[in-house]
């Protein structure tokens, strides 16, 4: 058993298996990643202008992870994550206008301004949040998997978590339960190298996060999370494993956040060189752009047109988020409790 489990552990960031996609699909992935990048840049800018308050955790640099993952799932599969969540919402198909309006605390936001950056949801898009407590989305995502299994549908729970959450005890309670009950959960660790301001090497006794499910017999793989096609291929395989009734799967996506932990973090715990090297050599969007140009799948004009479309979409979202009204004061009192049927 231990041997079998061991064979399923793979670290292969340097030898990626990539998803085979059409030129149009690759352009689509490019557009989706760019939408997240521009959205987050705009959110950062608006935060700086005082138009967004509270916490704001940007996903810039990590776009390939959720974009590749969502390209590998089927309609009806559920998604849950922690608080670096704007990218996940956009990748799930939620409207940038509603997300941005939530950031600015307006009534047109997904939670009518009552959730904020860390707490947005869309039942329609099967996005279950948006959770502010490190690690808590893991038992919740396991419960989503339990519900899928209980109902006997073929849905899979995509449960995203950060490298920081991997040192939370409840993660291992969940791994054990999911393996024991063979729940259809794919745990996707977004290892952006830092849990807040502390690097993985300074916080984790065992840095191979993908291997942390091994004692439970959960297969794990470490993937280049800056390569959207590698992410997509890995998630396809993991989702198929979960969907076929074989139980959970762990994917560790090696990625990188360009910005601080939140908008208030100047990120002095790492060197500028480190950040610029990642940006220049590994940027997930530049990689796809280069593929598109080098492969002759899209010329500069086409890419320029996409850039402009995305920019227009973000401008529209930002305008919407600033022009929308604040929540009605009566909203303070709504949705605390539900209506009890007589």
């Amino acid at each position: 058993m231990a041997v079998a489990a061991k064979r399923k552990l793979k670290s292969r960031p340097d030898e990626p298996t990539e998803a085979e996609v059409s030129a149009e699909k690759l352009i689509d992935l490019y557009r989706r990643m760019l939408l997240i990048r521009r959205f987050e840049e705009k959110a950062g800018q608006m935060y700086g202008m005082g138009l967004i308050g509270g916490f704001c955790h940007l996903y810039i640099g990590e776009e390939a992870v959720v974009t590749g993952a969502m390209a590998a799932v089927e309609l009806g599969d559920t998604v849950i994550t922690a608080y670096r969540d704007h990218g996940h919402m956009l990748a799930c198909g939620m409207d940038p206008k509603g997300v941005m309006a939530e950031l600015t605390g307006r009534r047109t936001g997904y939670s009518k301004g009552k959730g904020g950056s860390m707490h947005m949801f869309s039942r329609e898009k099967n996005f279950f949040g948006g959770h502010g407590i490190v690690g808590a989305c893991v038992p919740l995502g396991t419960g989503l998997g339990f519900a899928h299994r209980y109902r006997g549908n073929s849905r899979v729970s995509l449960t995203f978590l950060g490298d920081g959450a991997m040192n939370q005890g409840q993660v291992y309670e969940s791994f054990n339960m999911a393996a024991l009950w063979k729940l259809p959960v794919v745990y996707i660790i977004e290892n952006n190298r830092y849990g807040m301001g502390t690097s993985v090497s300074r916080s984790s006794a065992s840095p191979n996060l993908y291997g942390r499910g091994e004692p439970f017999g959960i297969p794990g793989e470490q993937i280049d999370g800056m390569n959207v096609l590698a992410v997509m291929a890995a998630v396809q395989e993991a989702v198929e494993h979960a969907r076929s009734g074989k139980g959970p799967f762990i994917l560790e996506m090696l990625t990188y956040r360009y910005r601080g932990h939140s908008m208030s973090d100047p990120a002095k715990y790492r060197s500028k060189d480190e950040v610029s090297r990642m940006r220049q050599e590994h940027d997930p969007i530049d990689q796809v752009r280069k593929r598109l140009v080098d492969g002759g799948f899209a010329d500069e004009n086409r890419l320029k047109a996409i850039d402009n479309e995305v920019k227009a979409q973000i401008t529209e979202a930002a305008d919407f988020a600033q022009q929308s009204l604040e929540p009605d004061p009566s909203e303070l009192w709504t949705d605390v409790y539900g209506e009890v049927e007589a």
Partner: protein
Amino acid sequence: MAELTYRDAVARGIAQEMTRDPDVVFFGEDVAKAGGVFKTTIGLLEQFGPRRVRDTPISEQAILGAAMGAAMTGLKPIAEIMFSDFLAVCFDYIANEFPKARYMSNGQLKCPLVVRTGNGAGSRFGAQHSQSVENWAMMIPGLKVVAPSNPADVIGLMAAAVRDPDPVIFFEHKSLYAAKGEVPDGEIVDRLGTAKIVRPGKDATVLALALMMPRALEAAETLAQEHGIEVEVVDVRSLVPLDLATILSSVARTHRLFTVEENPRLCGWGAELASIAAEEAFYDLDGPVVRITTPHIPLPAADNLEDLALPSAPRIVDKIRRSLNA
């Protein structure tokens, strides 16, 4: 009508709801094959099978997290936390997850689950397995909190809790499991947020719940027989929602208010009721509200010490008699 123990009422209450609704699923530590550490869930595994009645690992965070994950999709989980003291192990779900989901999601996410838990002292289990912690849950907006005192209420309030659209923390009292009571035949469905006047009286209102109910009733009998004092004993039953109409109208008739609480002194549920009475019933009251509580100490294991710590019928009698100068 049949006589049933509080313990057997738990299983009957759960079975009633599982029979009615296939979306009700029940899990916890030792609840299935072992029938529950307090033998409250015997027969459920046999009746409903391992798909719907499940033993879990000893993983309280995973239990409550999984319950909420399932509830968010529309299932109606009943999760057991064996001892209410262990709610502290998984308090993130009690404090930060269950009660906030509806509010933070603009009503998109619902959390229709029930957490059953063995609460309270009397079994000499010591400081970490004996606490009465319904006040922990009462203080969190978004939760509902019930604590039944008799078998019929266990079934009826369990049904109300399972059918409720919100997370309900259901405090069963460990020292009541062997208590017997008359239970009507057939389906029993009660309402949350309803207190019950169990013994009418004109001289003072006594609020109690769970194990403090039989003690308050015993004290009321002594007060009537030996001191000619007629107290009205109200079973609060549900702390959230709270039946203020019944409680305040009783105070308006009796003009005195006593609470009998197993919670330790500071911030026990009676403190909130005393505060409400001071604001809403000040001019009805002929004297100060008096709280009869467990002192602000960890609970001891030794028989005599534990007995000393909890409000007893003689202590309730004594306190009420002195306060009324009778």
